[in-house]
């Protein structure tokens, strides 16, 4: 079942519709409810390798629906610690639970100061209203 629209307060948001959940020097990344809804049923996750570097504002992979492809933009720079194996196997998990089981990547942050440039939930919601 598709998830209800929500933008949890404990996350940091990137304007390209990606989120980060910070825990010490690591962050978990995913795409927002808005992004998965715009794409429709996600059927493929093209993920980076563990150990690869990701850079803020740059693509680290792709998610595809039946009809469309979307670049995954990293909100933070760092090193890939883990790719979500559940999403590799069952990409629709992103639609079902975009902030929980549908996370995409876990990274070790190389520059935690980048967090200051991300949006809080209120600012991200305001951005969506503008669009």
């Amino acid at each position, binding site marked *: 079942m598709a998830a209800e629209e929500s933008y949890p307060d404990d996350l940091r948001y990137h304007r390209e519709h990606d989120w980060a959940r910070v825990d010490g020097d690591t962050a978990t990344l995913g795409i927002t409810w808005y992004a998965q809804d715009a794409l*429709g*049923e996600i059927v*493929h996750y*093209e993920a980076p390798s563990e150990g690869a570097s990701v850079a803020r504002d740059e693509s680290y992979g792709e998610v*595809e629906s*039946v009809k469309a*492809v979307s670049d995954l933009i990293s909100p933070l720079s760092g090193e890939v610690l883990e790719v979500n194996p559940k999403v590799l196997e069952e990409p629709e998990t992103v639609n079902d639970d975009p902030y929980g089981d549908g996370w995409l990547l876990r990274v070790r942050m190389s520059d935690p100061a980048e967090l200051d440039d991300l949006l809080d939930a209120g600012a991200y919601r305001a951005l969506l209203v503008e669009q």
Partner: protein
Amino acid sequence: MQTLRRTPLFERHAALGARIVPFAGWEMPVQYEGIAAEHRAVRTGAGVFDVSHMGELRIAGDGARDYLRSRLSNDVDRIGPGEAHYTLLTNESGGIDDDLIVYRRGPEDFLLVVNAANVGPDRASLSETEDVSGDWALLAVQGPEALERLGIEIALFTFREDMDVLGVSCLVAGTGYTGERGCELGCAPEDAVRLWDAIVERGVTPCGLGARDTLRLEVCYPLHGNDITPDRTPIEAGLGWACALDKDFTGVSVLRRQKEEGPAEKLVAFVMEDPGIPRSGMGIEGGGVVTSGTLSPMLDVGIGLGYVPTAGSQPGEGITIDLRGRPRKGRIVTKPFYKREET
């Protein structure tokens, strides 16, 4: 800026929460609940599509049969009154300007159902036809349970006019674009909402253009503008069966020669062996191009159609697709990808 047109069912699509997109000059539903669910509904039950954006051209009167024999690739004498067939409108180079279904209503009376994007050019090319698109709404009801839900019977590639379907007078044709049994229903635009509602009340799933595309691709029906174009011939596209090369029609000499010599490239079907989904426009190593691609909802694997050099076009041959910079392996297979179970 061009204004987008709406079919008589637009309000119904909007009320069902459809995602509406511009398509060939029309605002059309691409999906309601989701492409994969709609796709499976058609493969296992029944689905209904609004295809009222498609065009209808009519030609009737003395000389109609001769005119169509000289302009369309298939021979209208292969069908009699009450029958329909697939045919191509070819150009002087043998390229495919459109693909269409011809319905023969009488010895000299024909209805042509053409692609929405090509109504204008087809009408200009087929100067003796009349555009009667405004007289018709068109619904496709497809799936193993489609005819049963409507309480009608119609044989493949036949049609009947003025048939009562759930209280609406329709042209009922045993045609479709999904590879399933079912029908296409033509009715007066003012009856379209009543017909749609009656069909949906029978438990038939509303389906959008997204599922229409994945369904047709699984059974390797070409899409004009993608897999077949004015620059590609029926011989390259594997549509020689829809060309009566023993009669004269526009471009026939090119096609006869190409059939004799063999085309340089052929349209093939392939499945991905590596992860990833092929998409239209991606390159194929060795000089080919993908013309359609998707994830097959029934097979759960990336599938596609594309042109490759004839030398490497046999089923079983491996190919490499350039998936946005990543080389990914696939294999050419026998068409179609998916075949319904015969009952």
